[in-house]
Structures are given as structure tokens and as C-alpha cells.
């Protein structure tokens, strides 16, 4: 079962690489665009944060690490599922989901990973580099325990991020257009590039426990900065599991009311 899905995913990646290569110029422009964007953002942030010693207890370099980490998860999300969901919205609007629904693969899985954005790798790598740069200039911990916790928190953060997208796009089955909702989720996830503490106590609680945005970026980064609490990992894993299951249930519930166009 798992083997089948891994093979299938590999084929999807290969098909997508072929597809991206068909438009060679696009591919190159995509890479240049992301690298260019990253450089500009870095210069811009250096200008701003160079004048501020710390924000809500975070030093300049710690903030850079968080920012880089945020770029990394955005890049990963973009690589794996952003475009698939955008296509999914389009397909619903045009009643084109039909062909996908008849396929003997997990529908949610297929819908989530059909289209890969290859050039997002460059933006993920740029994020990784910035993350690394920030870490190197901070008081980081690289003990096996910290790294293991970091890995677990990355995974659960990714799952939460993904589940939020699933939630939002489930509304597609009723609303036909969810661009505004998608922008909202982009905005919400975008807030994770700054530490939750910076938003004030109430927001911090909200971001940790209601819509667990803090779990996406701040928790993993804090672990490597030796500022985590013992409950981060179990809490984050638990929440991500809950989100994954609930979003899937909600997605399939919404699917039931889907009635494709025409008749």
C-alpha cells in the first residue's frame, strides 16, 4: 500500500519534471525570480532589523533564522501542494473533478499532490540557507535530542500547514470560489515568520492553541535555539494528528455535497 503510493508519487514527480522542462524558459525564469525575491527580502530585512536589537526577546539573528525557516516551509508547501490545490479550485469551478473521482487512488492524496512546483525547490533552499545563517549566529543547540525534537516538530508543523489548506479548500465544494479564503490562510501562515510573542500575549495563546500557527514555524525553531518547553513535541504531534483527521473528515463531508456541473 505505502509502496504503491511512493511509486505513484515518484511517477507524479517525474511527470511534473517533464512538464516543467517543456517550458525551459519558464523553469529558468522561475528560479531567477525566487532567488531574486529572496535576496531583496534579505536586504530589506537587514535594513530594518539592523536597527532593532531584539523583538519580544528574539535577537536579530534568531529572527533571521525564523524568517529563513518560514521561507523553507513555504517553499516545501509550494513544492508539494500549493499548485495542486489551486488547480483543484479551478477544476471544481469547471466541473472537471469527475475524471479524478473515478480513479482508484486516495482522492484527497491525489488532489493534493498532482501538480508540483519544481522551482519552489530554489526558494526552499534559499530559505534553508537563511535559516542556517541565522542559526549559526545564535546560541543554537544541535544535541541529538534537540535534533530529534526538531524533526518531529517539523513534521507536525508541516501536517498542520497542510491540514489548514485542506480545510480551506474543502469549502470549494460549496463556494466554488475560495480565493479569498486562500488569501486569508496565506496571510495567517505568513504571520508565522515573526515570533508569536511579538503579537502580544493573547495572540500568542490564540496562535498556539486555537489556530496553531505557532506550531508551524516558531516551535521547531525555538527547539534548536534551546528555548523550547518539554510539552512542545507531544502537544504538536497530537494537534497535528487531530488536524489531519478532522480536515480529512471535513473534506470528505464537503465532497458529498459536490454535484458537478451539467447533467
Amino acid at each position, binding site marked *: 500500500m505505502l509502496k*504503491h503510493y511512493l*511509486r*505513484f508519487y515518484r*511517477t*507524479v514527480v517525474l*511527470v511534473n519534471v*517533464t*512538464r516543467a522542462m*517543456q*517550458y525551459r524558459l519558464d523553469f529558468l525564469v522561475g528560479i531567477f525570480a525566487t532567488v531574486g525575491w529572496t535576496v531583496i527580502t534579505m536586504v530589506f530585512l537587514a535594513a530594518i532589523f539592523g536597527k532593532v536589537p531584539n523583538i519580544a526577546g528574539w535577537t536579530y539573528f534568531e529572527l533571521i533564522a525564523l524568517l529563513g525557516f518560514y521561507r523553507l516551509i513555504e517553499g516545501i508547501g509550494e513544492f508539494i501542494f500549493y499548485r495542486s490545490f489551486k488547480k483543484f479550485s479551478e477544476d471544481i469551478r469547471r*466541473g*472537471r473533478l*469527475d*475524471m479524478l*473521482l*473515478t*480513479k*482508484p*487512488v486516495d*482522492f484527497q492524496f*491525489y488532489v493534493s499532490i498532482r501538480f508540483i512546483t519544481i522551482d519552489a525547490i530554489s526558494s526552499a533552499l534559499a530559505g534553508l540557507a537563511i535559516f542556517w545563517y541565522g542559526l549559526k549566529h545564535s546560541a543554537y543547540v544541535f544535541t541529538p535530542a534537540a535534533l530529534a525534537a526538531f524533526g518531529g516538530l517539523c513534521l507536525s508543523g508541516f501536517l498542520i500547514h497542510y491540514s489548514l489548506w485542506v480545510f480551506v479548500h474543502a469549502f470549494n465544494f460549496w463556494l466554488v470560489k475560495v480565493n479569498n479564503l486562500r488569501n486569508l490562510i496565506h496571510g495567517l501562515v505568513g504571520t508565522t515568520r515573526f515570533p508569536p510573542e511579538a503579537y502580544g500575549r493573547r495572540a500568542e495563546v490564540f496562535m498556539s492553541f486555537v489556530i496553531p500557527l505557532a506550531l508551524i514555524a516558531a516551535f521547531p525553531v525555538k527547539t534548536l535555539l534551546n528555548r523550547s518547553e518539554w510539552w512542545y513535541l507531544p502537544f504538536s504531534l497530537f494537534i497535528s494528528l487531530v488536524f489531519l483527521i478532522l480536515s480529512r473528515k471535513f473534506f470528505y463531508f464537503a465532497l*458529498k455535497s459536490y*454535484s*458537478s456541473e*451539467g*447533467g
Partner: protein
Amino acid sequence: MPIIEVKNLKKHFNIYQKEPGVSGALRAFFKRKYYAAKAVDNVSFKVNEGELIGFIGPNGAGKTTTLKILSGLLYPTSGEVSVLGFTPWERKKEFQKQFSIVMGQKAQLWWDLPAYETFILNREIYEVSAERFKKVLTELVAMLEVEDILKVQVRKLSLGQRMKCELIAALLHSPKVLFLDEPTIGLDVVAQKKMREFIKDYNQKYHATILLTSHYMEDVKRLCDRVIMIDHGRIAFDGQLSEIVEEIADHKILSVIFQDPIIKDQLGGLGEVIEFDLPRVVLKVPRREVSLRAAQLLSQFNVEDLNIEEPPIEDIIRELFTGRDVA
């Protein structure tokens, strides 16, 4: 044991109605009016293995909705459906691996890739072994004569070529049941003919059960022994194509060639004149009175030739669907 069984199937859609203009849009924003459209209304039929059935009816008759329910794309409002022993809308993988649907207006091929890439993807989805994939693909490619275009971007193909590739993509896993929704739509006459030949060959060679919708009568006439006619969500006819004529048409066509000129009024009471182009006249007469009217004609006029014909099937169906002259 039928391979498809449909019992009292109903599908009603809630369709939202908007009044025209800005004020209508504004009103609809707060309170929407819905009405229930009965797309499928109490439909029952059975299909045996290997049958090639034509599903015909005007636009909006409920053909596609029925096919979508049979494919598990839509949940019915009520009724029972069994395809290959499965309930379609449960979408069991085992069921999905054994059927395919091709919709003339909905593509599954990746637009900016060669069709071959979609085939590879489907190979993985349906878990077809590499050997089997190669064998089936070779056969299908030969049958459809598309050797040269498999590596060409789909967007650069003609509609006919694209439909052929769509068919291959749908058949790679050798489905036992195949639903074809308007497979010839938009194709030119030659391509339509090719497509028809392929469907017929495929049905005979692999004993696949095929349900085909079309509003080209020619498709159905050439391909299907049995037709199911659907109109306003109900089955109007289910049987051999040849029976439609007898069952539904309440009239026959008398075409007469007169030796001497006559005037139209002389034919009063003999039948409805549908063509008057001396020496040829075509009359529509009630089925039961055909021999009587023919005898009357022969005795009253100098007739050079007289033919009694069944009305063309297209006309019967057109009449049936416009609700006129239906027995």
C-alpha cells in the same frame, strides 16, 4: 446475472434561480430561490455482460447524470444501483479498477504533456504491470492508428487524435465496463466513423460492456442493438432499435409516383400530405389503415409506383422528444 442493475433511480438537483439584473443579484445574495430539477426520475434497467447499449435522448434528458451515478460521481436521491456487484458511489478501489468513463467534453490527458505521460501515470494509478501495460498499449495504438502522436504534446493534437488518446488512457487497465459520454462530439465525419469502428471492434474483441450516450443517431444506429431512450429523466423506450419504429411510430409513409397530374385537394382524406412534388407525393398515414389507403390510391388514380415505408428513425425520435405524434 446482469452486470449493471438500476432500480427506481432518482436524482433531483436543487438549482438556484436568480432573477435578472443587479436587483435580482442583490435579492439572491440574501435569499436564494431553489427549485428541484428532476434530472433522473425513476429509471430502471439491466445490462448484461458484453452488451453495447446506446443511451439516447435530447440535451438535459438525464443521460449524463445517469452515467455519472453509475460511475460513482454523484449520489442518487433514491434508488438502487449495482455495477459489477458494487454500489458505485461507495467508490471502492476494486470497483474503480474495473471500469472507465470517457467524457467527450472532459479530458483526463495532461494538456501540456505528450499523451504517453498520462498513460504512465494511469499505469501507476491502476497498478498495471509493465508487461501488461506494454501489451495493451501496443494493441490499442495499433487499433487506433496513433503510433506517431504519442510523444506529441496533447495541446498540439487535433480533436480526433486527442479523443483517441483519451480512449487509450481509459482502456489501459482493461476495464470490464466502459461508459462513453458523447465520444464523437465535435469530431468530423471521418473521425466519427473511425471512432465508431473502434468502439465496435473493442466491444467484440474484449467483450467489454459498453454504455454509450450520443445525440448523433448515426452512432447509435451503427453501434448498438439495444437502445435506452431517456427523456425528462424517464425511460421512454428500452429495447431493440428496430422495435422503436413499430412501438412508437403510429404511422407509415406512403410515397407515390403518379402517372397523371393531380391536384393536392384530390388527396383529401387519404392521409397527411408531407411532400407534394409531382409526379412524386409523400403521404403520412395511420399505421392500421395503410393497406386500405394504398388500395384507395391505386383504385382512384393512375399510379406508376407506390412504396410503403417505415418513417426514418431520426424523425420518430425527434417527434417523440418534442412530444408530438407519439403513440
